[in-house]
């Protein structure tokens, strides 16, 4: 009942104000639904005299007899009404049209019409209706040009977000900014290798409580982000959190439950048995076997419960929230539990000249058995591979059996194979625990120095403590663990200290010209300390004791390491906007960055922009609103810490041994930051009484001076050269069309389409890659060529190109067979496809009838190719439906020529798969069209028309990822093997995609 005390406290803070005037006007302010509006502002025009509405929406103000009253409230259209009597009731309509305010870089609020670049706003409601444990996943399909790929880490796992295409070989993540302050979004443990075995640590953004979000702005282009300088090369996602609103204390309680079901399981066969007893494969005789796979996955459950209290007076507002997320994934034993506590308070002093704001957030998250993608420690390999005819139930019930020899329980599995183990052994005896504690505190003060001039100071401390442990029991497969087991522990502490000062000045110079100037500086300090323990190769002394004291030879294995990664950044920046008659705006921004990673250099990033609201300049009767915008900006991506320091070139100690450096800076060049220059043009139109809206953006971004580790010739003295080179271009268009089909008080229907197309080209890498006899050399973003797969950058190609082993074909394009009749393969790897779509299309609809609302979102991604290493491995063992169907038919159709040149139209299935499948097969056979169209979201909501016992009730039923209208790949192309830079467009035993149903109830008092 602590919340009750808080309410009383908040009420005490509530202070009203009144002023002397000639006449008293009273009235009530309500919304379209007839609900009282609390805290609406009422100001007597031309004076400072004003008041706000009380708990019941009532107000009372003394004004001059001929006065006009201005009514305003955030989220509602302003109204100005002349006083004609002593009573004045007003209805404010929701939504702000032309005077819409959006939050831009550094938290500066700007009128949307004056912006010279594209900004997409997503409201908190939009991300909260269909909730996801990682809030950022809810942005999927809601804004053009934003690509979201969920990692394979199950509930609460990290997500890969790319704005307007991949640009960088080192980092493509956008910058997340919460209430104006850049947030660390560390994400470690991403697999870069097909073998995997790393465990996704989750990302920073997934820690945010969705219910705390007021709105999200997506700044996709460099122009929008230029004020953030080097951190913002990949765009910015700005999150504005909820604050206390003055007026009656408002209590919101929200509960949601979502149930997840695995869909898109691989198509497996259960009619051909084990090849021979003891064999790993299922190329044996026909039989009838149980489907042991589909029953393996659980129904996933996610409960998100939250409540918030907010309220305040004229001079002080408070917001408090608590939320709990409890989930268990579709993978048995995978659990997540997260608590979020947030409190923020703002107070104003000295006639509101000084405003102080403070906020504290605490996040505690515990995740057990977050799924690991890749081949190692993945329960799905053993599950899918199980030779048909073996009893999975026995392996489930008896995943461990007593060993007389060791006097302990050991794993029970049919094969000793590094890429598979008993799934239940992995889930119970290779368990991992990810715990996170995170504190974020912010203080800010702003002081109104004079009319139009404000000074703002902000400070933020963000500390994250991650603790990962992995307890791997004795008798785990020998490649993955030593005989007595393996202990892994990572402790990673992240600290970010951020401070900035901002001087904001705006002035209406004369009736035509408005000036808006901001000057500021910022200081950022990042420190990441990691303590990494891994007993592998050194071994454990006692079996199954998982702590450091038990490490057998701590200096022989990969064992004990600590790292500190730290960077300091300072910046000064300024922006100026001149507006002419609210129809023409010019923007200029500049930022200068200093980074400790480049101690001797300063970098300047400019941007320029222009906007013309041409409907204000000329009379275009068919348009209600028309705006053209053009902008250019240059931003950068900083150098990784320490790289430029000669100390890093001097070697280090590993396991007590001295290791000489093997990566050196090529030709001792002076490293400079990676740079993105982008040009953007846009058009925003509204017509038919603002019912039809259309936005169009064209952009082009060139990212140069990339950091690339290129392979050095061995005789140069280094294994790798660090170069600062390359030019990756992204060009694209984004369009959104929205139409209010119906708009009346009771019934409304809005339909909107969004479209995005991005083309990427690697224009240049490094001259050393060019002078090759057989064309430009390839730069591997994944580990090179292992498992017949590589993610490759090559001059003339595109980011994300998937390379693999191809069929050897003759001049007529026919597959060539060898003397045994097996398809031959080309030596080495070649280009197969690119996973990035040609274009993406989304269609969303929202209908509402009185209190009932229906929303759905269909989106599609067209073109692109993805590769399935899972299927290649499963085919080898004969467990897929494809291999069974081929055996049923007795052949695989093929357009080939035999070694003697004769045409071949079909070959024996086992012969065919022995050539194409497996880790050393022909990956070309496992390339699939990535086109997919799906019903991504469906929600049905009901808002009770009247308050029930003073309580507003909103109930919604939600569905996510409901069905595929089309999907040719054997997995969901939205799932990515890694949320890092590499391993894109390839499936390596990722967790299947899920379909979710849920219910969301929110109450406000």
């Amino acid at each position, binding site marked *: 009942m602590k919340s009750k005390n808080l309410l009383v406290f908040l009420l005490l803070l509530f202070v009203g104000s009144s002023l002397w005037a000639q006449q008293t006007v009273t009235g009530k302010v309500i919304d379209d639904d007839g609900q009282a509006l609390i805290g609406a502002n009422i100001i007597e025009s031309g004076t400072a005299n004003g008041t706000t509405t009380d708990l019941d929406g009532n107000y009372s103000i003394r004004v001059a007899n001929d006065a006009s009253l201005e009514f305003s409230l955030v989220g509602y259209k302003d109204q100005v009404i002349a006083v004609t009597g002593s009573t004045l009731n007003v209805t404010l309509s929701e939504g702000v049209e032309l005077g819409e305010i959006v939050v831009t870089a550094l938290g500066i609020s700007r009128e949307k019409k004056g912006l010279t670049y594209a900004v997409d706003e997503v409201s908190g409601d939009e991300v909260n209706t269909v909730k996801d444990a990682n809030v950022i996943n809810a942005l999927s399909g809601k804004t053009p040009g934003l690509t979201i790929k969920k990692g394979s880490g199950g509930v609460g796992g990290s997500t890969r977000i790319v704005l307007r295409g991949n640009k960088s070989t080192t980092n493509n993540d956008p910058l997340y900014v919460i209430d104006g302050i850049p947030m660390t979004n560390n994400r470690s443990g991403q697999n870069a290798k097909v073998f995997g075995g790393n465990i996704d640590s989750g990302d920073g953004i997934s820690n945010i409580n969705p219910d705390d979000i007021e709105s999200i702005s997506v700044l996709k282009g460099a122009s929008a982000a230029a004020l953030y300088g080097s951190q913002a090369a990949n765009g910015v996602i700005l999150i504005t959190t909820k604050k206390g609103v003055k007026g009656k204390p408002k209590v919101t309680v929200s509960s949601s439950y979502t149930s997840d079901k695995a869909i898109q399981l691989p198509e497996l066969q259960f009619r051909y048995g084990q090849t021979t007893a003891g064999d790993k494969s299922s190329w044996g005789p026909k039989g009838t076997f149980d489907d042991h796979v589909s029953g393996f996955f659980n129904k996933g459950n996610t409960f998100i419960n939250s409540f918030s209290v907010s309220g305040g007076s004229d001079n002080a507002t408070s917001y408090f929230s608590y939320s709990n997320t409890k989930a268990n994934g579709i993978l048995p034993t995978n659990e997540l539990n997260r608590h979020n506590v947030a409190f923020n308070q703002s107070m104003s002093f000295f006639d509101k000249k000084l405003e102080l704001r403070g906020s504290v957030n605490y996040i505690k998250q515990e995740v057990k058995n977050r799924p690991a993608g890749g081949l190692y420690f993945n329960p799905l390999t053993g599950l899918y591979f199980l030779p048909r005819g073996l009893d999975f139930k026995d392996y489930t019930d008896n995943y461990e059996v007593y060993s007389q020899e060791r006097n302990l329980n050991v794993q029970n599995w049919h094969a000793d194979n590094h890429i598979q183990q008993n799934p239940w052994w992995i889930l119970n005896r290779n368990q991992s625990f990810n715990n996170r504690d995170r504190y974020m505190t912010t203080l800010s003060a702003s002081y109104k*120095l*004079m009319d139009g*001039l404000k*000074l703002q100071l902000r400070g933020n401390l963000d500390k994250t403590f991650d603790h990962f442990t992995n307890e791997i029991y004795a008798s785990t497969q020998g490649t993955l663990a030593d005989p007595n087991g393996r202990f892994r522990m990572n402790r990673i502490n992240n600290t970010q200290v951020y401070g900035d*000062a901002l*001087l904001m*000045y705006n002035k209406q110079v004369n009736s035509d010209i408005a000036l808006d100037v901001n*000057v*500021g*500086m910022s*200081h950022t300090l990042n420190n990441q300390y990691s303590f990494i323990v891994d007993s592998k190769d050194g071994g454990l002394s006692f079996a199954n004791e998982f702590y450091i004291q038990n490490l057998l030879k701590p200096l022989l294995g990969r064992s004990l*390491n*600590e*790292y*500190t990664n*730290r*960077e*300091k950044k*300072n*910046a*000064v920046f300024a922006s100026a906007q001149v507006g002419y008659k609210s129809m023409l705006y010019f923007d200029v921004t500049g930022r200068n960055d*200093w*980074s*400790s*990673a480049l*101690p001797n250099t300063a970098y300047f990033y400019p941007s320029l922009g222009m906007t013309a609201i041409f409907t204000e300049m000329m009379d275009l009767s068919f348009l209600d609103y028309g705006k053209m915008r053009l902008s250019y900006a240059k931003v950068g991506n900083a150098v990784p*810490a*320490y790289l*430029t*320091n000669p*100390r*890093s070139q*001097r*070697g*280090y*100690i590993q396991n007590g*041994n*001295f290791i*000489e450096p*093997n990566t050196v800076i090529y*030709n001792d060049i002076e490293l400079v930051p990676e740079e993105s220059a982008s040009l953007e043009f846009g058009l925003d139109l509204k017509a038919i009484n603002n019912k039809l809206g259309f936005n169009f953006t064209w952009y082009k971004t060139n990212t140069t001076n990339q950091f690339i580790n290129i*392979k*050095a*010739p*061995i*005789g*140069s*003295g280094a*294994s790798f050269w660090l170069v600062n080179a390359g030019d990756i271009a992204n060009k694209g268009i984004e369009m959104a069309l929205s139409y209010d089909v119906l708009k009346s008080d009771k019934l409304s229907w809005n339909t909107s389409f969004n479209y995005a197309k991005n083309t990427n080209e690697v224009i240049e890498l490094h001259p*050393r890659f060019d*002078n*090759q*006899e057989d064309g430009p*050399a390839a730069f591997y973003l994944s580990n090179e060529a292992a498992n017949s797969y590589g993610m490759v950058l090559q001059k003339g190609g595109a980011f994300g190109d998937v390379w693999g082993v191809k069929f050897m074909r003759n001049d007529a394009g026919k597959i060539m067979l060898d003397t045994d009749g097996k398809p031959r393969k080309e030596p080495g790897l070649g280009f197969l496809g690119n996973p990035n779509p040609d274009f993406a299309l989304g269609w969303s609809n929202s209908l509402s009838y009185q209190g009932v609302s229906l929303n759905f979102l269909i989106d599609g991604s067209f073109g692109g190719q993805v590769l399935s290493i899972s299927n290649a491995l499963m085919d080898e063992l004969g467990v897929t439906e494809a291999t069974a169907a081929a055996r049923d038919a007795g052949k695989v159709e093929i357009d080939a020529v035999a070694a003697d040149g004769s045409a071949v139209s079909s070959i024996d299935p086992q012969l065919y798969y022995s050539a194409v499948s497996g880790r050393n097969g022909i990956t070309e056979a496992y390339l699939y069209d990535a086109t997919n169209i799906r019903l991504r979201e469906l929600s049905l909501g009901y808002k009770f028309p009247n308050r029930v016992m003073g309580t507003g009730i909103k109930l919604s039923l939600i569905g996510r990822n409901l069905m595929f209208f089309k999907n040719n790949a054997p997995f969901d192309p939205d799932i990515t093997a890694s949320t890092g830079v590499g391993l894109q467009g390839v499936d390596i035993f990722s967790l299947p995609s899920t379909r979710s149903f849920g219910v969301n109830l929110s109450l406000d008092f």
Partner: protein
Amino acid sequence: MTIKYKFLGFLLVFLTLTMIPTGCNKDFEEYNQNPTALTNDDLKKDYRIFEPFKTMIRGIYKHTPPWQTQLQQNLIGDVYSGYMMPPTPFAGNSNNMTYNLVDGWNTWAFNISYANVMSPASFIEKNGKDFPEFLAWLKIVKVEGMHRLADMFGPIMYSQYGQLDADGAIAYDCLPDLYETFFRELDEGIAGLEAFQATGKPSPFGRFDEVYTGDIDKWIKFANTLRLRLAIRVSKIDPALAKTQGEKSLTHPLGIITVNDENFTVKNDIDHPVNTINTAWNDVRMGAPMESILVGYEDPRLPKFFEPATQTNVAGEYKGIRQGIDISSKDTYIGFSKIAPLGNVQLMVAAEAQFLVAEAALRGWNTNGVTAQQAYENAVQISFDQYGLGDASTYLNDDTKKALPYVDPNNAANSLPAGDPHISTITVKWNDGDDFETKLERIITQKWIAMFPDGQEAWSEYRRTGYPKLFPVMVNNSGGEIDTEAGIKRVKYISGEYSLNPKGVKSGVDCLGGPDTGGTPLWWDVD
């Protein structure tokens, strides 16, 4: 007006504030230092800057992990010398053994020497300038490490290592130049060590020296022996140079290594990698020529080198696998003789030194009066001593025992009958009346036995002299590049060099004297 001034005042204050960041940048240098990386000052303490000597000494013959040893030598020199042969039909039996040179393997053979010898050496050259005694020592270790690579590939990057030319390429050294450099560096190394000894200071090498624990006399003797080895190597192509260089060693006051205590063995607790390849992986077995010669001589060293076979029809006998035969399953030959457990890695023995003296005497060099026979018999006795086998005179007086015909119990096609020209006919006992070639064959055949298991050096001497007689491959997958009868002459350059250093590797091919194949003999390999 006042308001404007006020504003300007604020602006001034603000601009001053904004200057702070530029002032704050002062600690950037310190902040940009990785606390877990080392500085030169850190490395000077306890001479740790010379730590890379350990890497070098362990990298001449890569000790660990064993798979690197396997690729560096066990699937190349150890097989081509006739010492060993894998029972494993790697890559469908089309691999180094059957003369289809596997680029992915040989890449390691090439790169290991650069990563483990040249790279640490260049680190020491750069950072240890103040310590000439270490630099002198370095030269000797470097030559020992890199002559083995040159013996494998031919021209290699050495003098131009780490130096990009105008096209960004690293040039290769042709063998005549390379040998000149080797000889010069050995001279400089010996002179540098002698100069340090003259100062009377104690040796600082001990903590990094897993071979001679810092004993500078032993290093000088080793360097002399190495110079003699290289001189003998070029004795056919450039007799004058060979004589000059060889006599320098033979007449040096400290001379060459003479007792087993001076053998170049690497003393550490790392298990010999061949033990893992041999027992854990079952990827290597005795070579057929070893069986034929050692069993024929009833050589007492046989049980020291190999274990009896376990395959039922030959159990208890010593059985070797013939190189380059048709193998379809690893199980076929897995029961042949394993290598007996090996101790420390051994790269030069005193016996070899005496065999070198024997050949020098044969070639008429100044050996301080030691005759070829004396050196030969002395060498065999030293080898017996090394294995604790007592007096060798019975063995040395045997003039009847010869190598035996070879029988493959699993595939008769691989057998070599009595009288086959590939079966050695040389006996043990020295006969001063024999002609030069017979004497040479006797010396080299015995040296071949004494040097076991260093297949790399044995293969080099086989190519130079044609001794001992070895068996040709049965399956030749070289596509005509390697002549079956002449056998493999070198390892092909690696694809990584063709892609990353194309101009450089071309400079190597240009002075190879033939195409870049396994069939082109090296400079010193002449008849």
